[in-house]
């Protein structure tokens, strides 16, 4: 992963093997160890259920179709299950590349749960897309309201905090085995993807279809209803006039679907008028 595209960096944590673990390996026979590992595996299943039970959809983020536990959820789960952390330390690094200068924060810490400890890392840099842009509404030359993406001055404290929070979230989710979950598993616990926050990057974000508002849908339906109320001959004449145009295709495509997106709603306005 390049340094420029960082938002949530997931450095592989190192497993910290304590001396008691070596003692355990010497103390128990293979069969006993197998039983112990089976027990641990069962406990981890319970831990996972307990963790999911203590979160709600607002604690999860859908990132390109995969669920990620947000900091609110990670902290709740850590408190409920008793995850410990220590030796948290952060570093600020100045960086430079072809695009210019920027800085990054990296926090590391040791996370422990049930006699196991790992080191986890969290980073965030001044090019992080969550902190650079905001949307502003403006009017174009035709007087239409348009959404414009604007650059926001970066608050360094936000970058630092995000890096610290990423470290906590990474540490908590890894030590509890809450990575690589699927929406199907979450839905068994009542956490639905549709009710969670969504994060999309770069090209995906541009492709995103926002649903049309209720007011817009009502307006379109009203216009279409008027169209339906026309006499059959008038309808034929109208369809004849528009059937070869892109507008007609737009109407037909939209009518086949249940919902209309904001973009489609704009085209429909023009077409049905």
């Amino acid at each position, binding site marked *: 992963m390049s340094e420029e595209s960082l938002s949530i960096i997931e450095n592989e944590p190192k497993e910290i093997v304590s001396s008691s673990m070596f003692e355990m390996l010497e103390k128990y026979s293979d069969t006993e160890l197998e039983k112990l590992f089976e*027990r641990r595996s069962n*406990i981890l*299943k*319970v831990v*996972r*259920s*307990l963790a*999911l*039970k203590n979160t709600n959809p607002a604690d999860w983020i859908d990132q390109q179709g995969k669920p990620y536990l947000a900091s609110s959820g990670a*902290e709740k789960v*850590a*408190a409920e*299950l*008793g*995850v*410990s*952390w*220590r*030796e*948290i*330390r*952060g570093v600020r690094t100045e960086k430079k590349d072809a695009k210019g200068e920027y800085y990054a924060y990296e*926090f590391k810490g040791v996370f*422990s*749960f*049930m006699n196991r400890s790992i080191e986890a890392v969290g980073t965030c840099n001044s090019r992080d897309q969550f902190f650079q842009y*905001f*949307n*502003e*509404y403006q009017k174009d030359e035709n007087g239409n*309201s348009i959404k414009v993406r604007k650059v926001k001055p970066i*608050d360094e*404290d936000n970058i*630092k*905090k995000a890096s*610290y929070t990423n470290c906590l979230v990474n540490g908590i989710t890894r030590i509890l085995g809450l990575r690589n979950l699927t929406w199907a*598993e979450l839905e*068994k*616990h009542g956490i639905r993807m549709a009710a969670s926050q969504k994060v999309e990057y770069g090209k995906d974000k541009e492709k995103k279809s926002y649903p049309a*508002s209720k*007011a*817009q849908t009502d*307006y379109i339906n009203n216009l279409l209803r008027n169209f339906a109320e026309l006499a059959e001959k008038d309808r034929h004449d109208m369809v004849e006039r528009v059937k070869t145009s892109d507008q007609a295709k737009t109407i037909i495509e939209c009518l086949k679907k249940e919902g209309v997106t904001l973009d489609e709603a704009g085209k429909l306005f023009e077409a049905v008028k």
Partner: protein
Amino acid sequence: MEKELFLNAVTKMELDIKESYRKQAKVYPCYVNRASEIGHPCERFLFFQRTEYEKKSLPSVELMQIFAGGRLIEELCETELKQAGYKLIEGQRPYKDDRYQLSGHIDGKIEIDGALYPIEIKGINQHDFESLSNVNDFLKSGKSWLMKYPAQLLIYEYLTEAPAGIMYIKSKSMAGFKAIPIFLYDHLDYVESLLKKAERINEAVKTKTKPPQIPYTDNICGYCDFLTTCLPDKEGIELNFQDDPTLEKMLIRYDELKPSKSEYDKIDKELSRIFKGQDRLVIGNYIITGQMIDKKAYEIPEDIQRQYEKNKPYWKKTIKAIGKE
């Protein structure tokens, strides 16, 4: 205006308001111990306030809105006091004590029977408002912002040499107010501990020695503006996993019977109401009998009850099923 444009205009308005709050957010330098902060349960926080205030997080937009609401509540309280014939004087007058490097600005003083008493006004959420009636309630709340309030007023009493003061709290849902009298001489030990704390902070600032971390507490550390400077360790209280098949079976059965128990209780209550005073009644395959029972009862006057009142601790168990995968 078309609906779409109007919706956009409203969205823009929301963004403008948030941006306006964001622009107002500031962090102020702090060179002395503030009366409003000295009651904070973490000395390390108080040390950072004085030595690394520039690293303090800017208040969030949400917090800025809470502050703005607090100022409005203060104005409202001043108005209601004035309407009732109590005028606030010396509002925002600064007081300081050089020995302890301690300073503060009082909300005001109020005249009662010819004497002036400091008054501190606070807007409080309805849930907390209901639970606060005296100094101990504030100190035991576990919330750093509430724990600071009595200390602030007591330090004002100490700085203004007043024997008492009033903590005037108002519910943010505007559903009520409480004027809580706080007497300096009832809390001399606490005030002394605050002054000693101020001395320790002064010494730590002078020698540039960070006070130790307090044990991580969500309600304190989780809200701390110096969280990423302090980097506290957290000692979690782990769950105790036990293998006990007999107990596990008992818990499964307990969970299975629970819905039946609540249904049984509900029907039993309803039947008791219906069959009250009825005897030798047959319905279907059931015969219902009843009799009046004399039960000894002791009606003890409340003042006598209070004499024998004592806290009797008991262990309250809660059993919840963990979701099954």
